[in-house]
Each structure stands twice: as C-alpha cells, then as structure tokens.
C-alpha cells in the first residue's frame, strides 16, 4: 500500500456525503443526452468525488468483458472510481483462468492501493494474491471465491463481496412454484455446472422444490447449459417436444438463456408457461415489464463492483486492518415481477448504466 492516509481522513459519514454528491452528479447525467445502450461515457461524472484527497489506484479484473454482466461491472467500477477519486485499471479475465493469471502475475509488482478480482477459477489467482499480501495491498474478492473461505486470510483476500446465489435461486423458483399452484411439470435450465454461482442457484431451486412434491422436474433435474443461449434453446426445445401436455413452468439460471428460449413456446401448448430467471439487469427487467418473463431476481453486478470499490477505498483511506473486516459481505438483490411495480421501476433506475447501483 502506498503511504496510507491517516485514519479519520475519510469516514462513513463523509462517504455518505460524497455519495449524495455522486447521486446528484448521476441525476444530472441522467438528464443528459446519452448514447443508447452504451455504458456511461468516459469522463462523464466529474463532480462529487473525493476531492482534496489523494487519488488512489486500484487494479480490477473480472471473468470476461464479452459478458454483459462483467462489462457492466467494469462500467460501474469506472463510474464510481471517478466519483471517489480512484483510478481504476482494468484487466480482462477473458474467461480464461490462464490468461487472467498471467495478467495478474504481471502486475503484482506495480503500485496499487487495493485490488478487486473476480477469479475465473477458484485458486487460480492465489499465488499473485499472496505476493500482493506481502506488499500489504488489500485484495477484495468479487462475486465468486478467489480461494476457499478458510484460506482467505492466509492468502491475502481481505473480504469477499458476493451475491446470495442460493437466495436468488430460491426467490425465483418460489415465485414460479406459487404461480403454477404447486403442481405440474417444470424445466430447470442451469448455467455452468462448475460455476459456484450456478451451483448456488441450483441449491436454491432444490431447496424450494422439496417443498412442492407435486412438481416434477423434466429431464430428471437440472440441464447444465454452460450459460450458452444456443445450448439452452436446444435443450429447452427438446424437452418441450417430448411433452404432450402443457409444461407449467421453467426456471433459468440467467435471464439471457431464458430470453433466448421464450420464442420456442410461442404458438405451442406450452405458451402459458411461467418462466422465471436470475440476473435482473436491463434485458431481464424489460422482459418482465413486457410480461415475457414472470419474474427475475436481481444479481446485483453493479452493487458488487461498487461495494468492492467503496470498501477498498475505505480500507486504504482509513488504514483499516484486515482483522476488522468481515470475511463476507452479501449484496442483496430483490425479486422483480409485475406484482410489485414499484420495485420494477426502482430496479430500472438503479440498474441504468448511468447510475450503476444494483
């Protein structure tokens, strides 16, 4: 860590003040003419930052920027970095543990105030994180585990900022089960079987399914589709084709996979299927608003990246000790459906790339 600032220079109250200023800046930005769909323009948020404080420098890496989820995380970190006077330097994981490892290996000797990593694969970044620990640079794990929980401290991971994957699976599944009246056949389309997020969502589905004995999961259980839309669509169609009676519902581990499959039920006996998913970003929220998706539970990508950044700057500016930081911080995400329009509207606002807050 570079010349840690004395404790008291930044505290939570002053942070809240800056947040208020930042929200003001975001509100101003919201009124500006912005490019459609694009992330917030570089250099847009100018005010509300940690003015007068030393500028911090943070290394960020997440799984792969070709994913909309990860790309939005980068936009979030950069937006809030400007507001909090933190220079965010990005290293794309490219969905390849080896490439990500090489990139992080290359930067362990550079000057950083803190680092935030979402490892493509558990343990793959353990060695470079140990080097960062030797230099007393705080490392924050985002979304998925960098190392097993019992090895976090010894490796140099200060805290893991993560969504509650099990809750997300439970939330969307419960909504579906209740909407179908607790009986009938359902489809369960999963992400990547090795992904801890997908495992959590599956656990959530199973937890709820146990309470509904009259619901049969087609195909014998979850169909792992590696987050791939084509694969999900093919599997989904095959299961639709072999059923002669309407299928009551379907739960998908991601909105993207669900949206890719929805056209397959049009003009079929399954057209009234209750479809729920997880992610709750722009595409999913729009689908809920249009009545295509029954519900989605927000996987708060922005909140994860924003919280990681905020915690990182606190750790440095307050010169906090690792022992005072909890090992895990859960970032909550609500269930969004047309039943609660106010939540839907709020999520649209918070998930907007201009705000990057959920």
């Amino acid at each position, binding site marked *: 860590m570079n010349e840690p600032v004395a404790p008291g220079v930044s505290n939570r109250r002053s942070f809240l003040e800056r947040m208020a200023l930042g929200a003001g800046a975001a509100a101003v930005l919201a009124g500006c003419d912005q490019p*459609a*769909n*694009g*992330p917030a323009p570089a250099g847009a948020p100018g005010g509300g930052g940690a003015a007068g404080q030393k500028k911090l420098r943070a290394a960020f890496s997440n799984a792969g*920027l*070709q*994913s*909309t989820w*990860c*790309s*939005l995380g980068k936009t979030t970190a950069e937006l809030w970095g400007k507001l909090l006077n933190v220079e965010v330097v990005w290293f794309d994981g490219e969905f390849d543990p080896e490439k990500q490892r090489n990139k992080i290996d290359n930067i362990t000797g550079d000057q950083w105030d803190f680092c935030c990593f979402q490892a493509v694969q558990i343990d793959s970044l353990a060695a470079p994180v140990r080097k960062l620990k030797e230099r007393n640079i705080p490392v924050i794990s985002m979304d998925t585990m960098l190392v097993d929980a019992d090895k976090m401290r010894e490796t140099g991971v200060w805290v893991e900022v993560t969504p509650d994957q099990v809750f997300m699976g439970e939330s969307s599944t419960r909504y579906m089960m209740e909407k179908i009246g607790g009986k009938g056949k359902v489809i369960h389309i999963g992400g990547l*079987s090795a992904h801890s997020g997908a495992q959590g969502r599956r656990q959530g589905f199973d937890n709820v399914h146990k309470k509904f004995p009259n619901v049969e999961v*087609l*195909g*014998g*259980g*979850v*169909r*792992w589709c590696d*987050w*791939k*839309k*084509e*694969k999900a*669509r*093919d*599997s989904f*169609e*095959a*299961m639709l*084709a*072999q059923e*002669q009676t309407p299928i009551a519902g379907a739960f998908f581990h991601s909105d*993207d996979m669900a*949206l*890719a499959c*929805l*056209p*397959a039920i*049009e003009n079929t006996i399954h057209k009234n299927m209750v479809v729920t998913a997880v992610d709750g970003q722009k*595409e999913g929220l*729009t689908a809920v608003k249009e009545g295509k998706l029954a519900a989605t539970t927000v996987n708060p990508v922005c909140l994860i990246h924003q919280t990681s950044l905020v915690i990182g700057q606190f750790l440095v500016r307050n010169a906090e000790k690792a022992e005072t930081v909890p090992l895990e911080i859960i970032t909550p995400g609500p269930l969004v459906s047309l039943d609660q329009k106010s939540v839907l509207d709020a999520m649209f606002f918070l998930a907007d790339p201009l705000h990057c807050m959920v």
Partner: protein
Amino acid sequence: MSTTEVTEQPGATPRTPFDWRSLAPLATLIVLVIFFGLVTSNFFSLVTVEKVLNQGAVLAIVSVGLTFVLLCGEIDLSVGTVALWTACLCGVLFESKFAAGPGGKGAIGAGAVTLLILLPLVTSVAFGFLSGCLTVVSRLPSFIITLAMMNVALGLARYLTLSVTFALPPLLKSVGNDGSALGAGFRFPNSAIVAAVVMLAGHFILKHTRFGRYVYMTGGNREAARLAGVRTERIVIACLAICGLTAGIGGLVNSGRLEKVSLDQNADLLLNAVACVVLGGTSLFGGEGSMLRTLLGVVTFSVLHYGLNRISGINDLMRPFLLGVVLMVALVINGLLARRK
C-alpha cells in the same frame, strides 16, 4: 480464371451414391435414428423433423462455406467470430438512430432492413476475402491467417458492441423462429429454407460450374491444377470469401433465432461445423467431398445432438461425453471404410 476445361474431378468425388465412404455417415444416421426412436418417446414424429431442421439450419449454412474451404485444402478458423461480427454489426446498425433507434423499437422500411442485412454480409465476405488474400500473399497456412482473423473479428465485435446486447430486425427473428405451416402441426422452419437455398447453391456451384471443378482440382493436387492452368490462388481466395459469406448468413440466422445478439453467441459454431463436414465424409486434406455429404453430416450431427437432449435417464453431465463417443465412433468407422475403397 484459366480457360482450361476440366472434365473429370480429380481427387475422389464419389462416382456412385453408395461408395463405402458415403455409406458410413448414412449408416451412422440410420443407427442413431433407430436408437433414439427406441429410447425416447415420440421421437418418430414431425416435431422431431421440425426441431432437427431448425437446430441444424445454422450449422448447415456455415458448413457449406467450410466445405468449399476444406475441398480446396484449406481451413477457416474464423467462421464463429465472423458470424458473431456480422450479427453484432447488424444489431448495432439496427439500433442506431438512423434505423430503429435504441432498443429497436422504431419502425423501419423494407429497404432499410435489406441494407441492414446486406451491409454486414458484405463485411463478412470482406473478412473471408482478406483471409484468402493474406493466405496467398504470405504463403502461410490458412490455419494461421484465419486464426489471426478470428481474433480480429472478435475484437471488432467487442469494440463495436461494448459487450452490450442488441436487438435485431424482425425479419431475422422471423427467419430464426417462424416457419411455413404444412399441416398436421408441422412447420417447415424458415431457417431451414435459407439453409436449403444456400446448400443448393453450393451444390450447384460445386457440381455444375467450372469454378466447382477447379475447387476440387486445387484441393486434390494444387501443383497439378496450377500446371493445368488453374489459378489456384484465386480459387483459395474465392473459397474463403464464400466461407465468410456463409458464416455471416449463419450468424444472422442464429442471432435471429435467439432474438438478440450478444458476444456470447456462436462459441461452438466452428468446431460443430467442422465436425459436420468431416462426419459427412469430406476430407480435411482437400479434393474429396461434396455438398450432399455435408448435408448428411449436418443431419447426422443434428439428430445426435437433438436425440441426446431428449434422453432423460442419463446424468446430464454425461451428455458431452456421449456426444464425443458417438462422434468418435462415427468418424473412425468413416475412416476405416474409406480405406477399403
């Protein structure tokens, strides 16, 4: 192009429809159909035909271009990312303020839609053309050049979209998802019609044009072809350009089927398309194969893929293993039978 007339196709294009090499994929297909008919319910139905046609259409389109490239003894590793680029460009243009605007909510005319589809396809041809030119000029294997082009197309797609998902013209969604009702609940998918047109065009070019014969000659024995007056460099460039075009069409149809375009599409397209072409019996070393064989390979692969998805009594994690085993067995039998010829 040389004026030399070639009356016989060198290499080993089948003289009869039932030579050993043609029998292998056909036998594989028959075995698979019988097997899945026995172990899954309602497999022998028009729904199965519709789904196989729909799920195999993109593979068929892309495989046509790959067949040209493989026949002339080259390979194109960039088909997946060129397909992705083409769809991304179409989506970005569609959501531009000059077209349907953000979210693709605005209405646009038929002329604009045509332009939105043709312009990306022109760029996909340009990718293939450039790969061909660089292969010929550098004298490097097309494997290397198209490997680089694969990253060029991916990088451009990422830069263009910033990883954001884009909507597509309704026409593409219709091509990907709708079909013509033929009675008894059977719909002939529009995507399969596109695939059929592309395959027929490919078949006609290969079998009934001088260019087609030159493709076989170039792949069968490039030096002999060159001495016979065939401008083999131009053949290679043209085949890679055709491959770019079919990759672009495939990318558009695939994205239309999925209703949106995003960077995570077409990840398996290259390897699946190569598997289809080789499964049909087209040689990886050039000069031997046909569009009919590719069709057989696509149908076999699609039936296998669909059938495995229909089986419910197996561990889901074993599906890729089974897919691999069946493919391996089919390819080995194919190779053994070919040696008997």
